[in-house]
């Protein structure tokens, strides 16, 4: 049996990936935005709406002349929970390969989304990956590299069928 197929490797990678996804979902689900003194309160005062703001900035799913705000709003509401469910499954090790495959597919959509902002010259100071506060991680080449590394890990967890016992 190859050392790479040792069950422990896939399990550790799955837990690490799961923690990243659970952490990524946290602000988008739970955050409450505090109104600054004297500042106008934005319409959106919670994590899901703040995440919608970030999605708008990517200008991939709208809103625009053809795509109504429901499209990015639905993603803002559902994606964090999909991340949370998939992350928890990866951590506890239930449906691990499927959860990893889903995380891989999600990462595979994040990479062109970020790359397209670079291509179109859209400066996104906070990629909305983890924190939704003003000074988040910039959507750039470093982020693409991180996403690609996590994609590789997800693919590994999804693809390797751990051998429970020798035949």
């Amino acid at each position, binding site marked *: 049996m190859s050392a790479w197929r040792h069950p422990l490797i896939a399990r550790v990678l799955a837990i690490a990936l799961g923690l990243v996804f659970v952490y990524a979902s946290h602000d988008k*689900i*739970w955050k*409450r935005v505090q109104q600054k003194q004297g500042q*106008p309160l*934005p*319409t*959106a005062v*919670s*994590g*899901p*709406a703040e995440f*919608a*703001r970030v999605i*708008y*900035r*990517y*200008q991939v799913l*709208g*809103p*625009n*002349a053809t795509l*109504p*705000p*429901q499209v990015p*709003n*639905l993603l803002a*509401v*559902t*994606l*964090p*929970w*999909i*991340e*949370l*469910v*998939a992350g928890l*499954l990866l951590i506890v090790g239930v*449906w691990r*390969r*499927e*959860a990893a*495959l*889903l995380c891989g*597919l999600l990462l595979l959509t994040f990479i062109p989304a970020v790359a397209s902002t670079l291509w179109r010259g*859209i400066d996104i100071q906070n990629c909305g990956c983890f924190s939704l506060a003003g000074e988040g991680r910039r959507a750039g080449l470093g982020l693409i590299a991180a996403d690609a590394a996590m994609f590789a890990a997800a693919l590994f967890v*999804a693809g390797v*069928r*751990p051998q*429970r016992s020798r035949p």
Partner: protein
Amino acid sequence: MAETRNPQRLRPWRVLAIVASGSALGLVWNSASGHGFPLSSNVYVQPGDQQVESAEAKGLIQKGALALDARPLWAYEAGHIPSALPFPEDDKFDEHFAALEPQLRSNLNVIVYCAGFGCEASHIVARKLKQHGIPAVVLNEGWPAWTDAGYPIRTGKQP
């Protein structure tokens, strides 16, 4: 048969089940938790925000309305609506406002624009101006709407 009972086998329906359950939880959370927001509304637009279309904005500007460019200065210099003044949306609102206050107070129509649908700056500037008693409106779809309509533009620092 042994293969189908193998707990390690990858089953695509489980991927769909995770997506479906996550989506359902998200929708329930959005409607019932108090953390949600109305799905049908643009989160950049607040009740009370007023927007004008590019054709109307052009007419108003020709009649003397003051246009404000809420994008960063480099974007303003790369191309802006003729007669528009730079009013970048940053943490120096008070400075920008003090510099332009006489013009803002003497204009009945103030139109703020930024980089289009993915840009919230014009809404933020217009909202802050309203707090200072300036009835500012936002150019819907901003700069792209203006250029797509083929309206004149100006480059450089001159308004």
